[in-house]
């Protein structure tokens, strides 16, 4: 999308592969699993994902995603999941509480986004989710990952920096960050 995007020179270290399990800061047992293993067989996973987004606070939207309203959420998710990308879900029991996605530009380059439900934010889930997502991408040959983030969204920028993203382009309203996975 932007020709000026600069990737870090250094390759990031190895990230953990999903599935991963941890206890969040609120003492909840959370499991991060790859979506692909559920794709055809288990539509319960899809419904649980839809439910998270239908209940998502619109104040936490970024650049128009996630869309608002169940119909739009379903259309958006179906379109996302049918691309040849990588998705991981954070589960608390039977509820999806977080979703990370890598959407392909081409075979080696992906756009990243993560969403954590409001009731589960600030509990360390975002870090685990993004690490498992990057590990999943690494496992399947993703080399370059980029994202956009609104520059006033400090917690998100801090999280991306913590796992190794660097600013790739800061010329637009939203800033671009990038990481090299292999």
């Amino acid at each position: 999308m932007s020709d000026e995007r600069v990737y870090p020179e250094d390759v990031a270290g190895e990230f953990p592969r999903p599935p991963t399990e941890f206890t969040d800061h609120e003492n909840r047992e959370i499991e991060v699993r790859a979506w692909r293993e559920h794709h055809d067989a288990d539509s319960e996973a899809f419904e649980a994902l839809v439910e998270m987004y239908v209940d998502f606070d619109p104040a936490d939207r970024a650049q128009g995603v996630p869309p608002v309203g169940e119909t739009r959420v379903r259309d958006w998710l179906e379109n996302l999941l049918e691309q040849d990308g990588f998705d991981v879900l954070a589960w608390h029991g039977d509820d999806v509480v977080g979703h990370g996605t890598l959407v392909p530009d081409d075979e080696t380059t992906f756009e990243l986004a993560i969403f954590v439900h409001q009731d589960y934010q600030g509990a360390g889930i975002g870090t685990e989710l993004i690490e498992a997502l990057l590990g999943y991408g690494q496992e399947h040959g993703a080399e370059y990952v980029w994202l956009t983030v609104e520059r006033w969204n400090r917690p998100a920028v801090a999280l991306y920096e913590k796992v190794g993203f660097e600013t790739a382009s800061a010329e637009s309203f939203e800033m671009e960050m990038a990481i090299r996975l292999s």
Partner: protein
Amino acid sequence: MKVLLGMGGAEDSLDALEETVTRAAAAGDELTIGIVENPESDRTPEQLVAAANAELGAVGLDADVRQLSGDPGSSLVQVAESEEFDQIVLGGGQRSPMGKIRLGQIAEFVLLNSHVSVKLVR
């Protein structure tokens, strides 16, 4: 209303063209279409002039179609302010494969610099 539509040739500017011409015909707007050079676009200014004329012809609307030279954002703002337009209309950005909306460089410049109201078409 005196409306200046800025077209750089990205996909969203074609959507803006259609919407603006339809609305101008219905509302009786006095429409000017400014074709600018957008380095992010694959379409030439000549193709954009042709697209604009085709859209105008389809609804039988008369409009001033001109090519603006120089920096695209600043030439649009300058024309809008010096000729006392009421509104600048631009495409409202493209969506990434993820679905995230991203504004074009021209729209960002115009939004931050224009003293004339700006409309983004979605």
